[in-house]
């Protein structure tokens, strides 16, 4: 049916009393997500969103009271590293960090630690997860995707929405959309999501949206050619990007000769992946 989240997912929102946190918690609730708790240190005991969601001072307490099993973070970048560790240490098995601008050194430590502890981290700097009709844990607009059989994994935000929208226009539905984020160090990588889609019985094909920078698309190509049976369609953003310039995302930069879009496209194509020329061309490649 989906990967990572479904209708039973009990979501905790860290940073729920901030502007972004509150807005998106409300959007998630509206979508039907079970938003069971929020955490803001010093605001424990409050209730937000028309008294629907209790706020706790610590993740530990929120978990004890509500049994949340997924945390979505809207915590400022300075405190995000700590907040991810807090979630992991308290026993949250799935941590989704929406926050942009977390220092790389923090992320190296956090990823190493959460990996050890067996916590699944998605992000940072990502739009989160959407399982259409069931649950939204993040900021992906809910109405642009219907339930279906396509798995979507992407390093981007609005570009993902563009693709979801194109799929919807073409009458194609989605099992789960996973925004893995645009930072150099991410908790969940393409290969992780591809493996999960490969294992998910309801996913019949996968759309993968990459961009310049790093070598994760090349690793995904290796994985696809060695371990995937399901068809994969890809789009790689940044074919026209100049080397050495950071294109918005911290991770979107061609440096030291690596991370070029052309190399990624070539690797994917030789792994049997259909690479779309533009996002709107993806649906037809799925047919």
């Amino acid at each position, binding site marked *: 049916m989906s990967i990572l989240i479904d209708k039973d997912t009990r979501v905790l929102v860290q940073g729920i009393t901030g502007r972004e946190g509150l807005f998106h918690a409300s959007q998630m609730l509206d979508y039907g997500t079970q938003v069971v708790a929020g955490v803001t240190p010093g605001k424990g005991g409050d209730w937000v969103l028309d008294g629907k969601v209790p706020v706790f001072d610590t993740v530990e307490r929120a978990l004890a009271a509500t049994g949340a099993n997924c945390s979505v973070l809207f915590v400022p970048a300075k405190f995000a590293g700590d907040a991810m560790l807090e979630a992991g240490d308290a026993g949250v098995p799935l941590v989704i960090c929406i926050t942009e601008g977390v220092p790389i050194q923090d992320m190296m430590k956090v990823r190493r630690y959460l990996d050890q502890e067996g916590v699944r981290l998605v992000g940072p700097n990502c739009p989160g997860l959407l399982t259409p009709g069931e649950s939204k844990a993040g900021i992906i607009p809910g109405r642009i995707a219907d339930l279906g059989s396509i798995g979507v994994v992407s390093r981007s935000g609005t570009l993902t929405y563009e693709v979801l929208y194109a799929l919807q226009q073409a009458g194609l539905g989605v099992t789960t959309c996973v925004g893995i984020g645009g930072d150099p160090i991410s908790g969940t990588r393409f290969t992780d999501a591809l493996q999960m889609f490969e294992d998910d019985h309801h996913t019949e094909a996968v759309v993968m949206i990459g961009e310049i920078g790093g070598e994760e698309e090349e690793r995904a190509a290796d994985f696809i050619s060695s371990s995937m049976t399901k068809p994969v369609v890809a789009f790689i953003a940044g074919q026209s990007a100049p080397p050495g310039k950071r294109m918005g995302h911290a991770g*979107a930069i061609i440096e030291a000769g690596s991370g070029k879009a052309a190399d990624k496209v070539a690797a994917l194509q030789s792994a049997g992946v259909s690479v779309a020329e*533009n996002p709107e061309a993806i649906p037809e490649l799925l047919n």
Partner: protein
Amino acid sequence: MRLHEYQSKQLFAKQGVPIPRGEVAETPAQVRAIAEKLGGAVAVKSQVLVGGRGKAGGIRLAKSPEEAEQLAAGIFELEINGLPVRKILVDEAAEISTEIYLGVTNDRTQGSPVLIASAEGGVEIEEVARTHPDKIARAWVDPLIGLRDYQARNLAAAMELPRQHWSEFSQMARGLFDTYWNSDATLAEINPLVITRQDQLLALDGKIVIDDNALYRHPELEQLRDLDEEAPSEREARGLGLSYVKLEGNIGCMVNGAGLAMATMDVIKGLGGEPANFLDIGGGAAAEKVAAAIQIILADPEVNSMMFNIFGGITRCDEVARGILMGLEQVPREVYLVTRLVGTNEELGRKILADAKMDTASSLVEAAEMVIEAAKMGVTE
């Protein structure tokens, strides 16, 4: 944020890495004075934040203070990859016996720092990686435990560095790593790390790139920022919280989201147009920010047309439409504009633009085709 060679080497020196004696000058006369003070031959090195200084004639060796002054005069006239030379580092010249590469960067896949060493120093490490991958030794550093002494020894052993230099090399590796780690760098490299004829190890050239997201905890490093590093328009955009990269084309692009902005450029380029820039207004931008972004894009005289591609999630299409009108009011020249709005308050946004008699498109490709055609016709006044 990238640091100059002289700034990088000074940071290394603070962590105990030996560097040549040297000082920075801003005039040929200062260069001469420094060379006189140092005595003997000196290296006269332009300080610009791009690669290829050597090839561009920006690094020269002078045997006397007079020669140094003369060479510096020429170098100060240079523009290297578009950047003017404002500063020259005058270093005591070293008698080089061996050149080594030593660097540390973030391995994205491993999620950890990686220390890289090669006996093939003095050239770009990517070049070595391509031509002699076996000549590169790597040591991944656990981010929770830090660099260990044996890792430096393993590198020295792998490079077949003569054993008499191991201890000094290990200390340099430690100093380099500490500089990298303590300054939240994403790259710190010594290239070349030389062994002199006197058997001393020395960081002859250095480079540091700092993680912009971590600069808040290093105010002392923020002060090292060279404003020449960025084009003035890029700097201005950064101040406004916009991601802007100037390119060579004539089609301005304003998009919300980095990935979508790249994809928009790609589509334009793919259909035969030439994007003039990358610009991401970010999520949930207000009309004022949209207007400011338009100013920045249209300040580029090459731009004769513009495409807005907005996929409204947090961003509201009506707010963007208002921003577009607001921005155009302040621009004294006419350019062709096409807007594609999808998502939150899409109808409202479209109506605002239609009322102002502006072109709108429903798909990305359609919008791109419209703007490319306009750009080719050369609408500029």
